């Protein structure tokens, strides 16, 4: 007589099967939604370049999104209505604070009320000097339309900079077009620029020639191993390595040695023509 297992016992009894099915359904269903949420989160980390975070915002966007609870207390604290909470369609993580420099820049309040209002530390309470804020850095993105680069004296970005003569300087050079006038070249020094956006706001062009960009976009990062020879020379009172081969110096234009003559560049041989 064949032995048939009773349906109520064994590894896959109907009860156990039901429980397993229910658990599997919950885990898989919720897991799929979770994966979608995670993917959505990844895309939320990529902000448009014109969206800037408030002063003191944790530099790493993911760290910021771990800390910011989207309460809007910084928005309420801002006396100039600079900050906004991201709405759907802003392409900034929903509910997080940001500002657009060309619309309303940061006025760099000395008491930094937005940072003080932040309850979680998403805006770092360690920032007490607004001049050390790093909301981004200004970049003169369009030299071809900047009026100063054309040889005119606009200077508006320079004059409006709250950190004038440090974050933006005017560098004088000769105007090759007229040969007798000067170009006052607006030059941003990123170490002193807070990214407040007043220069971008004040640029007189239809579309600003100077823009504040997030540091991740605007700044290059040299390799950790990279050393500047002249700095190392000063630090060590001499070369870091002994017996380094002195490579030939190269100069542009007609002083470049003809091919096949690698040694003794002509620039060293005598006065330039």
């Amino acid at each position, binding site marked *: 007589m064949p032995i048939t297992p009773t349906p109520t016992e064994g590894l896959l009894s109907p009860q156990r099967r039901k429980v397993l099915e229910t658990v599997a359904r919950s885990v898989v269903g919720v897991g799929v939604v979770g994966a979608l949420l*995670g993917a959505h*989160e*990844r895309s*939320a980390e990529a902000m448009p370049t014109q969206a800037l975070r408030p002063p003191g915002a944790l530099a790493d966007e993911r760290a910021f999104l771990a800390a910011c609870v989207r309460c*809007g207390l910084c928005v309420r604290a801002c006396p100039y209505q600079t900050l906004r909470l991201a709405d759907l369609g802003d392409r900034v993580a*929903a509910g997080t604070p940001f500002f657009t420099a060309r619309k309303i820049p940061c006025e760099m309040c000395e008491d930094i009320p937005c940072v003080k209002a932040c309850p*979680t*530390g998403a805006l770092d309470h360690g920032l007490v000097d607004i001049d050390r804020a790093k909301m981004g850095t200004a970049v003169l993105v369009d030299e071809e339309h900047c009026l100063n680069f054309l040889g005119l004296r606009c200077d508006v970005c320079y004059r409006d900079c709250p950190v004038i003569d440090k974050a933006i300087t005017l560098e004088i050079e000769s105007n090759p077009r007229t040969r007798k006038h000067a170009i006052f070249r607006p030059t941003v020094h990123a170490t002193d620029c807070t990214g407040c956006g007043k220069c971008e706001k004040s640029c007189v062009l239809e579309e600003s020639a100077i823009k504040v960009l997030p540091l991740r976009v605007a700044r290059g990062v040299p390799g950790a191993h990279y050393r500047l020879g002249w700095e190392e020379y000063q630090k060590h009172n001499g070369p870091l390595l002994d017996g380094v081969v002195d490579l030939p110096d190269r100069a542009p234009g007609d002083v470049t040695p003809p091919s096949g003559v690698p040694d003794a560049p002509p620039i060293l041989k005598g006065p330039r023509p």
Partner: protein
Amino acid sequence: MTGLAAVARRDHATRRADRAGRPSRGFWARHRFLILRRLSQATALALFLTGPLFGVWIAKGTLAASMTFGVVPLTDPLMLAQSLVAGHRPETLALTGGAIVLAFYALVSGRAYCAWVCPIDPVTDLAHWCRERLGLQAKGWQPRPQTRLWVLAMILAVSAVTGTIAWELVNPISFAFRAVVFGSTGALTLVAAVFLFDLVVARRGWCSHLCPVGAFYGLIGARSLVRVSAAGRADCDHCMDCYAACPEPQVIAPALEGAAKGASPVILGRDCSSCGRCVDVCPAGVFRFTHRFDASTTPAGSAARSHSSGETP
């Protein structure tokens, strides 16, 4: 008029005829807690709106984190939990606010947040009301009520894996609150989605089955004090109105039908949101608000009398 609507209407008429023998209860007795809840929800929003509208600042922020009169911090503990698993250590101010909120709901009533504060509750209630009006009788997709615990686990897992506060990317509560308080009108699309989900896809789908915030508050309020008791259960004539009105009907049976087993008449299920719908709807006046240790019952006949005369039970 659809056939379904006609059926729904006939049901309603039959029920009303069944009750014809009872003393009629006034509008206030039938809608007391509904009105109080709407007032409470409106107040929660109004405290944040007096500032932007009239320049009188009472509460600043949102339900996620707020400052009342510039001194009392309140923080959503679920937000803090996600922030912590995402690897951020919040400032003391946020942690203090979280402790206050946690203590309040753990002591008073966990899911009272859902019924008395949350701005999504009127939205899903409206969806439910529309279902009834339209005579939609099919319940639609009905995941188990415990599904929300899985969703809660999921959002904490996604927060940990992505290193961000994951639920805030889609949390309809925050979206609705921001839409009203900060004018982020685009956020209303998500609120509309929840409304349509509850209207078309699943009866009481969001708040009673899926919302992880409700699951969280249910867990922290599992031992909370304020409870509804079926103290007058001796008067229950099984009209089923409370089951129909309750968004979490699974919590009623153990208390209402537990007399034979000697179970307490107090509704102790953690899913109960202390909304008082059962108190409002019961024509026999079986239910009343009390504390979790009040296992007293009233003898048959007394509950209905005190209720119809308008006394507070």
